[in-house]
């Protein structure tokens, strides 16, 4: 019996470590580096929270999408950002090693918008969005299993909503408050 408990504990520890390591991998540690800086708005939404919030989603499409979100991290700096150019360059260098592909990059002067994604067998596994403008700098990183079919269905559903109720959002939009 004791052996079983030990085994379960080790297994749990292993899962927790691998989860932490994998979660770090998607933003190359930027979240942890800057989350405690002055002026940082850092939000970490574990998969369990989105899983629970999916129960309150009215439409099947929303539920499916929320359930496929495993972990989300949001880091926003208003006014002054400590994130430097070398941080972005370091992240980009590491991204290829982490199988993250550059999807779109737009840079104008110091402003930057960048999306990176990791796809496995037609499923989107990681999505990292960086944005930097004069007044705001931020990073959103989402880990999950998103299929394009789910996105397709959600887009179609959104179109139906907009046709049914022009100018109004559906009553059951899930809202997560920090």
């Amino acid at each position, binding site marked *: 019996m004791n052996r079983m408990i030990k085994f379960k504990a080790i297994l749990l520890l292993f899962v927790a470590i691998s989860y932490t390591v994998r979660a770090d991998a998607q933003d190359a540690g930027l979240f942890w580096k800057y989350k405690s800086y002055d002026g940082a708005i850092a939000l970490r939404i574990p998969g369990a929270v989105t899983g629970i919030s999916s129960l309150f989603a009215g439409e099947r499409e929303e539920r499916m999408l929320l359930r496929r979100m495993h972990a989300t991290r949001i880091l926003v700096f208003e006014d002054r950002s400590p994130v430097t*150019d070398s941080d972005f*360059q370091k992240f980009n260098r590491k991204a290829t090693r982490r199988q993250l*592909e*550059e*999807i*779109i*990059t*737009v*840079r*104008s*002067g*110091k402003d930057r918008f960048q999306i990176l*994604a990791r*796809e496995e067998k037609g499923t989107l596994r990681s999505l990292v969005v960086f944005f930097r403008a004069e007044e705001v700098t931020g990073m959103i990183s989402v880990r999950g299993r998103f299929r*394009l079919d789910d*996105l*397709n269905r959600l*887009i*179609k559903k959104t*179109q139906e909503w907009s046709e049914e109720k022009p100018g109004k959002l559906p009553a059951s939009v899930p809202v997560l408050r920090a």
Partner: protein
Amino acid sequence: MMCTLLFATAFNLHAQNDAISRFFNKYAEDERFTVVYVAPKLFSMISKVSSDDEEWNKMRDIVKDLGGLKVLVADSVNNGLELYNDALGRVPVREYDELLTVRDGEEHVRIWTRENKSDTVIEELLLLVGAPDEFIMLSLSGKIDLAKISGLAETLDVEGIEHLDKIKKKQE
């Protein structure tokens, strides 16, 4: 002998494409330039997302065969012509066919295409614009339909892409 010739041709083609990429990478982090890079994956994702929206489907139809887009724009420089000549010197003219040349005062516009010899499909389009205070380089890859390409200028809101309209005017 044949093998050496094949290897040399392949190496030469790669090196030529590399020259344009190197030029792009050289200025990718330069703050005087605006950079837009759209990876082939985004175009492939867009082509998979279906919708009833007419505009979306029109865009989907245009981008479904596109490989990637790179745009480098400098609109407030004082050495636009110098940059243009530098880029011009790097264009592998042997591999590209000149599609269009426009010179209006001090503004130069040139568009080249590169065809896949086996199935005569345009697989790359390169646009260069140079003026004393402006420089634009646009490289579009994939299976390119010249008839649809001006539609891309209407669909994408990217600086410099409006010059693709000149292809439509040339065809008319």
